[in-house]
């Protein structure tokens, strides 16, 4: 088993969920997202974000609008669409499921007891 590979696969799976979470909290532009993801140690290089944002936008989960900035070039502010909110809800569900499963596996309690 390749531990590093496993870890990075887990992060990859999480990344879109994290981005949706961040944008759900408040519409933000790439640099905000990058800074917060870096703080959370989700990404190392910032270039990874751009293809992801574009794909989420193409999947109609995100929308953006240009805003002039007093600090440098104009910025794209991303926000969730209705589809995006729905996707985030589903991801929330499956995240809860996952943490529940992990908790069960850790403590060894049978599933019936864990599900309240």
């Amino acid at each position, binding site marked *: 088993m390749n531990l590093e*590979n496993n870890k990075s*696969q887990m992060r*990859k*799976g999480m*990344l879109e969920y994290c981005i949706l979470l961040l944008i759900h909290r408040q519409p933000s532009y*790439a*640099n905000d997202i990058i800074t917060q993801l870096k703080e959370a140690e989700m990404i*190392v*290089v*910032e*270039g*990874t974000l*751009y*293809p*992801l*944002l*574009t*794909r989420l*936008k*193409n999947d109609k989960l995100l929308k953006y609008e240009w805003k002039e900035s007093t*600090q*440098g*070039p*104009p*910025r*794209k502010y991303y926000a969730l669409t209705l589809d995006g909110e729905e996707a985030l809800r589903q991801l929330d569900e499956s995240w809860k499921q996952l943490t529940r499963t992990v908790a069960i596996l850790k403590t060894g309690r049978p599933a019936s007891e864990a599900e309240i």
Partner: protein
Amino acid sequence: MKKNISINLFGTLYAIDEDAYSLLERYLTSMKSYFARQQGGEEIADDIEHRVAELLWQRKQEGMEAVNIETIKDIIAKIGNPDEIENPDESIGENAAHNAADNSSERTTQTEADAGFHYNRTEEHSESILDRMKARIKGRHLYRDSQNKLLGGVLSGLAQYFDTGDPLWWRLGTVALFLLLWSMDVFAFLPILLYVLLWIIIPEALSPEDRLRMKGQEVNPQTLNAQILMDTSSVAAQQNSPQPSSGNTLLKVVFAVALGLLLLPFGVLILFFLLFVLLATSVMGGFVKHILPFDVFDNNLQGVPEFVQNNSTNIWFLILFGALTLGIPLFLIIRRLFTHTAHMSASSKVTVIIIWIVSLVMLLLTLFNNGARFFDFMNRYQRTHVHVQYDWNDTDSTDTDTVAGFPGELDPDSSACPADSL
């Protein structure tokens, strides 16, 4: 001291060093061409450009006067690898693992294969060596390595292709082969001819992407970035060394002259070949003309463009269209064999096809025209000698100019009904 230019990035002016500018431009161009292949790629490249502008703006606020190359390198490293998470499907991971395994096995067998490559000439264990060669070439594309070139970069490109490291051995081998053949006085020009042929056929590794493919490395933004940065440092090193090209140019001129002298006999050979084809097709053309119930090229050779009829230009037409008709497919086939990808846009394909068809038609017209003239000439020659009296009586002076280019005052009507002369 460095030359400085100013660029406009989304409405803000930046003073940027020339080398930094060329690095930045290459970076943005290669990102653009890389992402162009995927959906929304233009937008991604545009986002990256915006990000670059933003980072530059931040540095300007911090008091940076001019953008230097270190700044650009920093920014490229910061933006890093946009592709890391681009394809979350499993195949990427598998591929990477597969490649890694390949690489490591390749490395362990490298010394063996090195030795194996030389065995190849003695043809021992030819199969396993062939397999090793294939494993070694795998994923590589053949390019001319213009960064390590002496002449055209052919041998350094081959050295890259077969992963044999220093092209010096290829060069020494080629020179040795040439000297050997020369001393034996057989086909000494062959290595040179081959070299030139390869020079023409193999494309040069121009872009960073080409250079990655040449080395058999995966093309992704990370490797691209690394390649761009590496190219920059090697270019800088080249600029520092004094007058790197003057010796090269002299060498090239000498080489070209020698080549011209060597190619001359070939040109003559080709000419003879063309003449042979001309004769064969002429006879055929004349034959076709005579077995057809109607006259394809009647007296005035109607239907054939005027300029083709002009006898003195005929030979040049033959050479030109013959070379094009034969050369284009040959060139394309050889090119296809040696390079894995034929970089050809649809429009240039259409152009090449049109040129080829036109030259084929023109070649055939010229050849048939010649054949028809040849037979006409023969007919008239027969006539003038057999029925001298009849011809002289029947000569119509007004039509004689239609057969200009043929000796004698020949009867132009004689070929209108060729059957009676046979």
